[in-house]
């Protein structure tokens, strides 16, 4: 949004395409009822500022449209529920965001076991959570934000389980003092979280239930406890979505898209901003988006003026990295029969026989289902140190009809201009 608004304000023609049904990404996606939208406006002045800038800047927006392929340079193919369209661009800014890292443990495939951000997204999508008992678990600052959000919407949170140690959390809190805005957020969060028990060095061993979740077993300070609950919101920090940048040929280093000072990837005319370049939160993403949008519109001087701000925000991502590391004990959570690949139902025991992602894929179909390894890829990277293979089109599952039209002339009436013209 920041990239689109900044570029459009420079007077160039901009189209914004979002896979989500509503604008705003995972953090700012507006909530389902109008009352909650007002609440968002009141409580998040940054969000409303950008929503206003977006609508004033004349950006054409298309939501619920998913890019699946780039048949040729400067042309993207996208699908929605009703069909497909071709998106032509001269400059492209990729802001594909991040997803949660999921780690397998017994029972993690039960309905009502979701990601932390996953459950939050469901509640934003209208899921009633009032009066439900929710265990929030995993790793990272997202857990606190999710717990605060769920409680505000009426959920009961018996416990937040953070796998990191008190030591690394203390170091993280101390480091926060370099970011006054984060301190204010932290104080606000602490107020929202008052009374919710928080346990470090604590993680979920298993989720229990027959057809749906009824309790979780947690390991807290070396002791196993059983906690009844309606939902488990469990995620282990974030993994950048680099599949589309990779498909477009952008170089990826250690899981992150390589960009220069102007957020330009290694592919000319393709920029990237936000979590795919480094997981640093919404502030960094907005600054990167502004730089990318300005640079794509040819306003390098204005972009340069934001470099110092970005440098400061990037340091936060290093602090996050050092505070939140996965502990090795989590590698022992899956039982032999625990599914690791949820799409193809490949259990842990079948994967143990393999030495690489490629070998596991070829022999077990791990990572070959509809998510294309987006869930089990990061999990097996942690469990077995496997590295994913190259990305191939389509980057998301696409209808055969969409692929069949690749070589045909497309209906230009449905096409939109994306990026900067």
């Amino acid at each position, binding site marked *: 949004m920041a990239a689109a608004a900044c570029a459009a304000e420079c007077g160039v023609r901009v189209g914004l395409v979002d896979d989500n049904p509503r604008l705003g990404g995972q953090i700012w996606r507006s909530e389902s009822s109008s009352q909650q939208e007002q609440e968002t406006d009141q409580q998040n002045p940054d969000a409303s500022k950008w929503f206003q800038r977006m609508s004033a800047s004349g950006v054409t927006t298309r939501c619920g449209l998913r890019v699946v392929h780039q048949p040729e340079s400067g042309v993207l193919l996208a699908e929605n529920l009703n069909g497909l369209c071709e998106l032509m661009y001269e400059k492209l800014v990729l802001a594909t965001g991040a997803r949660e890292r999921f780690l397998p443990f017994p029972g993690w495939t039960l309905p009502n076991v979701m*990601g932390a951000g996953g459950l939050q997204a469901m509640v934003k999508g209208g899921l009633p959570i009032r009066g439900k008992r929710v265990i929030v678990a995993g790793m990272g600052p997202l857990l606190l934000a999710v717990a605060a959000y769920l409680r505000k919407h009426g959920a009961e949170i018996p416990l937040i389980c953070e796998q990191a140690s008190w030591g690394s959390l203390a170091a993280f809190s101390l480091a926060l003092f370099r970011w006054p805005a984060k301190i204010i957020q932290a104080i606000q969060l602490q107020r929202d979280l008052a009374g919710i028990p928080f346990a470090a060095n604590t993680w979920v061993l298993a989720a229990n239930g027959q057809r749906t979740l009824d309790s979780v077993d947690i390991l807290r300070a070396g002791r196993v406890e059983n906690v009844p609950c309606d939902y488990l919101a469990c995620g282990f920090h974030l993994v950048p979505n680099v599949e589309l940048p990779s498909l477009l040929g952008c170089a990826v280093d250690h899981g992150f898209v390589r960009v220069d000072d102007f957020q330009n990837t290694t592919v000319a005319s393709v920029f990237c901003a936000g979590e795919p370049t480094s997981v640093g939160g919404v502030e960094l993403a907005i600054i990167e988006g502004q730089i990318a949008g300005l640079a794509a519109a040819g306003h390098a001087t204005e972009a340069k003026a934001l470099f110092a701000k970005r440098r400061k925000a990037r340091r936060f991502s290093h602090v996050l990295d050092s505070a939140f590391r996965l502990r090795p004990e989590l590698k022992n959570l899956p039982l032999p029969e625990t599914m690791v690949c949820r799409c193809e139902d490949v259990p842990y025991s079948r994967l143990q026989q393999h030495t690489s992602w490629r070998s596991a894929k070829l022999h077990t179909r791990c990572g070959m289902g509809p*998510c294309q390894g987006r869930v089990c890829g990061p999990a097996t990277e942690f469990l077995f140190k496997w590295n994913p293979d190259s990305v191939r089109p389509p980057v998301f599952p696409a209808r055969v009809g969409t692929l069949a039209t690749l070589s045909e002339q497309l209906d230009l009436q449905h096409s939109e201009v994306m990026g900067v013209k």
Partner: protein
Amino acid sequence: MLNQLSVTVNGTPVVVPSGATVAVAVVLAGQVCRTSVSGEPRGPLCGMGICFECRVVVDGNPHVRSCQVLCRPGMEVNTEK
């Protein structure tokens, strides 16, 4: 009511808040989204269109990620067997 709408899930009517995703309609209907290849019930995991666990049939379109689609009045949703 203006701020609610009705869809069907596996033929049964469900009232959802307007603006709700199809995934929410499936949960409110007490259904799971799909049955895995080995027969396990599955519901939404990521909530953001990545994991494909919440895929359902919407108005005859198979493999629709229910967390990424908003309910429209009269929409026919069927879970994947």
